[in-house]
């Protein structure tokens, strides 16, 4: 089986989908000849032509608005937003239009769009090349939100996202774009939306993580293990609708919950995960849930490694959780 990193796996997923279905088109800034600033669309322009791999003017609002229109017609547009930080000019089209189209038209106009965007810090991007804005999309009814952590999942979740009838926001953790390598089957396969993966089993504490921070959670879990604390690490993969069953089943076993994400803590996805668990597994919890997250500040440049919820901050949370 070929070895690929996440960039290659997503590229392969896009190619697979485009070969399979002529309704699939890609649009975004610099996605064409140059193949994207992270090279995720490399080679697709040459294979599919500029009717289907479309460099657009510099307007996220225009890109997403047009993609919604294409979807209404019946295409399956895949939008690349160059960095998730630049998605906000399109937010009105996403919140007020894309997410509500099927509902507001009584099912006459489903609007199937996949919006891909690299997210997260750790690449020295400062405020504007590091945001991890999933909460602002999970809160919007009608959207599905995905964030893979491995090359295999990235391709499989992407193909599932393209096949899914609903609009999907597909966040790609750019810090591990090249570091997350592994076996990736050629040809089509899917990783089902809505299913999390237990990537490390343990009985003392449940850790929920996704994207680049999964690796930090795993690193912390390995270190905790040396101190006798066995953490169960769950890679959420689909952020919404989240795999509530897997989460609850694990927390009911461990009685302890640690949630990790890069985004600012306040009103972040961690708050939802904590709430879901306390609402549904209150009497199983033996300790207060802990959120290890980015801070409530803009994402800083020089101090980014102190901002991110890396292993050194997750480990104490794991050790602390089991003390109760």
């Amino acid at each position, binding site marked *: 089986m070929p070895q690929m990193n996440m960039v290659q796996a997503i590229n392969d997923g896009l190619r697979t989908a485009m070969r399979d279905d002529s309704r699939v088109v890609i649009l975004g800034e610099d996605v064409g000849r140059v193949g994207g600033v992270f090279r995720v669309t490399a080679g697709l322009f040459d294979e599919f032509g500029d009717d289907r791999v479309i460099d657009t003017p510099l307007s996220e609002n*225009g890109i997403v608005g047009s993609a*919604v*229109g294409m979807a209404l017609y019946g295409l399956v547009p895949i939008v690349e937003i160059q960095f998730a930080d630049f998605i906000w*000019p399109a937010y009105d089209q996403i919140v*007020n239009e894309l997410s509500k189209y099927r509902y507001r038209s*009584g*099912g*006459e106009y489903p609007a199937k769009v996949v919006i891909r965007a690299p997210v997260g810090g750790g690449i020295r991007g400062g405020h504007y090349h590091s945001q991890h804005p999933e909460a602002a999309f999970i809160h919007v009814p009608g959207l599905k939100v995905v964030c893979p952590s491995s090359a295999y999942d990235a391709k499989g979740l992407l193909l599932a996202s393209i096949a899914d009838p609903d609009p999907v926001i597909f966040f790609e953790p750019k810090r591990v774009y090249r570091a997350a390598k592994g076996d990736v089957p050629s040809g089509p396969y899917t990783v089902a939306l809505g299913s999390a993966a237990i990537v490390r089993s343990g009985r003392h504490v449940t850790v929920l993580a996704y994207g680049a921070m999964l690796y930090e959670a795993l690193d912390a879990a390995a270190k905790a293990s040396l101190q006798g604390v066995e953490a169960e690490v769950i890679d959420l993969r689909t952020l919404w*609708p989240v795999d509530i069953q897997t989460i609850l089943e694990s927390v009911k076993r461990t009685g302890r919950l640690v949630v990790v994400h890069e985004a600012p803590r306040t009103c972040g996805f961690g708050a939802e995960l904590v709430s879901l668990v306390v609402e549904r597994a209150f009497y199983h919890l033996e300790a207060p849930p802990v959120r290890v997250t980015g801070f409530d500040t803009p994402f800083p440049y020089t101090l980014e490694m102190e901002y991110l919820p890396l292993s050194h901050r997750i480990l104490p949370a794991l050790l602390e959780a089991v003390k109760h």
Partner: protein
Amino acid sequence: MTLATLKRSDAVPPNETIVRVLRDDLTLDPENDPKLGNDEVLHLYRHMVMTRQLDERLVALQRQGRIGFHVGSLGEEGAILGSAYAMRKGDFLFPCYREFGAALMRGLELQVFVHNMFGNAKDTVLGRQMPDHYTCRRVGWGSISSPVGTQITQAVGFAWGAKIQKKDVATLAYFGDGATSSSDFHSGMNFAGVFKLPTVFFCRNNGWAISVPVERQTASRTFAEKAAAYGIPGVRVDGNDLFAVVATVQKAVERGVRGEGPTLIEAITYRMGGHSTSDDPNRYRGSEMLEPWASRDPIGRVRAYLEKHDLWDGTAEERLIAEVDASFKAAVKVAEHTPPPPLESMFEDVYARPPWHLQEQRQEVLSGPRAPNPHGS
């Protein structure tokens, strides 16, 4: 700058560079005559009258508290029906919110529309949206949304999608003068220009964006000249001249279909009523402002033309109005006797299939207590 010095919207604009066909002497200028058959003119006229009649009746229903809201088209019927008529079967129109008359003419059934005005169980959008936010894909009609301008980029994308699939589909986006300030106007015009898409940008310049006059909307002398920014042609047309509107939109569609790209059309008309049933225009404009426009009523002009050609008279008019009245009353009766949408419909169509959390929430509502006064505020 004070509002007192802002006068552009007060006066009917001068003749120069504006496409006009129906002359004051009721002859048609051959240069732009769309050559409509008598039956076509009659068809359009009937729909203009019907639109106005319905507008009046819907406003009355709102005043009586029987429907929640209406946004009418008084004075703009020529622009709205003429433009819709010029689009071909198979083309798609992306409405703003003020064009129900065009939807009815394209084939939306009156009953379906009236169900929407009541937001009941037979409303095709299941009472999820406000009145006047119906949809009708079958007749090439989009889904209506309140945020100003958002339909513009979507109309462009729809035409683009068809073009990529090598299908002959043109689109028309309706929007007001206010919407030209929106981000979607800018992006939509720009993308359509760059990719040469067959979209007609149809700006109903009715002088106002709620209380804001066009002078406050832009410093450009006309809305049509905004086309220059996008390398596409911009045309001004007398929006109260049905014939001129039909001809201008037809040409724009032909141009688009030939692969020459989009056209911006500024239809000069006037909002003779309030912005919507929620608005009282007397707060910000004097009724004397309506006078120059009253004499150029789009319906009155076509009626004079028809009468001159002995195609219409008072009896025909009365009969038409009686017909509209009867069918509207019947539709309202049915709609008022239709129950509200079922509770569970609230959770459908959010996604193709309700995920676990919506299944739970549906269950919560179905097994919980009902709101004491569910259909009043």
